[in-house]
């Protein structure tokens, strides 16, 4: 008989006890992986929104500070004032500016069943009038400048005329639209010609059309929400942003990705700390469950351990047996814990409790989950194993 066979037989000897250990460890794994999935996805998405794309910073109305978080158009668009579109051309002429692109943003409440809607641009202050979770962002930008907003077509083509739009992949799912379908916005029918992805969960919930069309649709002709600016090679983006701000005092304001990053990072750190606190609590609870259960398992087998010592088993062999049992249970718990974590996150995303969050699994997160399980297995097993190995054979044999 192999030693490994004996370990496996011992594990399945008391199924309810083993299930309890597996659940204890699985809770820890599920907490770490599940919460990690959400926070990692949020972090990744936010980082994409802030740092990706061609734009180095954005220029907004000088009286609208604090809302626009980043260089992409994913910044704030609530209660903002517009920038005159003529500023786009002026900024383009400033030394050090590689390109400047005007973007108009608004929010709309699209009805999923008939796809009819009415836009309510943010400039009118009614952009957040409805339930935010049911709002869809509409972005107006020239088709040739999509890369400035980090928009990449994953299916179909870019819009080429005023009656065409492209929609974000999350919006496509929630609206059940694909290339070739039509969508009605403000009583006007648009053909979906492409699906795009930005990596920013907010923008992926949106619809993009030509700037002029959105200006017409919202009655904001000649106005943009923000200007995306890309510095030329060798030009410091922060210096350029300061130059632009100084040229338009009290009129325009700039927001670099760096400052946006800092603000977002602070927020993400709070989310991440909260997630770790919950995970730690789950790990502690799981650890206690494992230790108590393994202690009980060892206690129940005291006499048996005494017999094994009497027939010649070494302390090391007893230690190895108990820790191995704990580790095998940890391996089972890894599978269970990962299944619980992925299941819950999938359930949350498919039921749209977290709109736009597409879980992104990483090897690091997987390793964290495995690490937690093995740690709990070792911590939970080592003390009972140590106690078992130190048992005096005569005392163990007397145990009733």
């Amino acid at each position, binding site marked *: *008989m*192999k*030693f490994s*066979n*004996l370990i496996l*037989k*011992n594990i399945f*000897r008391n199924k309810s006890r083993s299930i309890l250990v597996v659940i204890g460890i699985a809770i820890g794994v599920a907490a770490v992986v599940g919460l990690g999935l959400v926070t990692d996805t949020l972090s990744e998405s936010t980082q994409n929104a802030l740092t990706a794309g061609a734009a180095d910073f954005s220029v907004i109305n000088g009286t609208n500070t604090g809302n626009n978080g980043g260089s992409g158009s994913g910044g704030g668009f609530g209660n903002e004032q517009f920038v005159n579109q003529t500023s786009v051309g002026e900024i383009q002429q400033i030394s050090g500016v590689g390109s400047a692109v005007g973007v108009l943003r608004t929010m709309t409440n699209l009805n999923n069943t008939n796809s009819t809607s009415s836009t309510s641009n943010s400039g009118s202050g009614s952009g957040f009038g409805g339930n935010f979770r049911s709002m869809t962002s509409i972005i107006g930008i020239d088709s040739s400048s999509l890369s400035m907003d980090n928009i990449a077509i994953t299916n179909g083509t870019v819009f080429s005329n005023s009656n065409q739009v492209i929609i974000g992949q999350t919006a496509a799912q929630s609206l059940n639209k694909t290339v070739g379908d039509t969508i009605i916005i403000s009583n006007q029918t648009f053909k979906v010609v492409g699906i795009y992805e930005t990596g920013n969960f907010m923008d992926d919930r949106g619809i993009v059309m030509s700037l002029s069309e959105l200006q017409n649709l919202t009655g904001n002709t000649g106005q943009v929400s923000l200007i995306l600016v890309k510095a030329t090679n060798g030009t410091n983006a922060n210096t350029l942003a300061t130059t632009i701000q100084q040229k338009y005092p009290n009129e325009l304001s700039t927001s670099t990705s760096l400052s946006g990053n800092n603000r977002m990072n602070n927020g993400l750190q709070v989310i991440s700390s909260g997630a770790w606190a919950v995970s730690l609590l789950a790990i502690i609870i799981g650890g206690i469950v494992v230790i108590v259960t393994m202690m009980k398992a060892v206690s129940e087998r005291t*006499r*048996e351990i*005494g*017999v*094994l*010592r*009497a*027939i*010649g*088993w*070494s*302390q090391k*062999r007893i230690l190895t047996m108990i820790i191995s049992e704990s580790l095998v249970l940890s391996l089972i718990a890894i599978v269970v814990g990962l299944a619980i974590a992925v299941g819950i996150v999938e359930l949350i995303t498919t039921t749209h409790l977290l709109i736009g969050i597409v879980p992104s699994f990483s090897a690091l997160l997987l390793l964290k989950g495995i690490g937690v399980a093995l740690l709990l297995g070792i911590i939970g097993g080592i003390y009972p194993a140590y106690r078992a190995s130190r048992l*005096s*054979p*005569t005392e163990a*044999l007397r145990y009733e």
Partner: protein
Amino acid sequence: MNNIIEIKNLKKTYENGTIKALNGIDLEIKKGESVSIIGPSGSGKSTLLNMIGALDRADEGNIYVADNDLMQKKDLSKFRLNEIGFVFQLHNLIPNLTVLENVQTPLIETSIPDKKMEERALEILKSVNLSDKINQKPTKLSGGERQRVAIARALVNHPSIILADEPTGALDSKTSEIIIKLLLDIHKKENVTLIMVTHEQNVANMAERSIYVLDGKIKEEKMNTPTGINI
């Protein structure tokens, strides 16, 4: 040296010296001898057996077993594995393992290959007439059968000494006789030294020599005839 066990002035106390379990034991046992240790409860007979089996260490004195100085030896588990086969009163089999697996448990600690391990266990089980029960769990066996499995487990590592602590204590008289005869038969065939602790005089008389222990000391020694009549 013809003696497999030599004990001189062995002492063991418990409860900070208040209980004198062994109070100066002197004993010599020859290789291949069968000896019964008899005495009332608390006389120290099981403690003496535990000292010989290296399950516990004495406080004072000398104890040599199979050329091992047990007062000095560090790795007692290896000594037990190589030299001692234990048979307990309550068989102490592992309930979730089959008869065959139970018999193999001492061999897990050795480097014997799995196949050889199984062959040896099957051979021993055949010698105790349990070949037809190898895949059964101990809970499905009678008391006598369980004790025979325990004897097989004690023999599987070919020990030089079998230590049986009240091996018939939980058995009826008929089964007791069968088990003692089996132990004595193995003792003769394998030329293995047999030491039995018992409180039953008729069982004690079946060994070649009986030692009477009282208050941690050997009070009397008797040679027995093969028929169980004292001489």
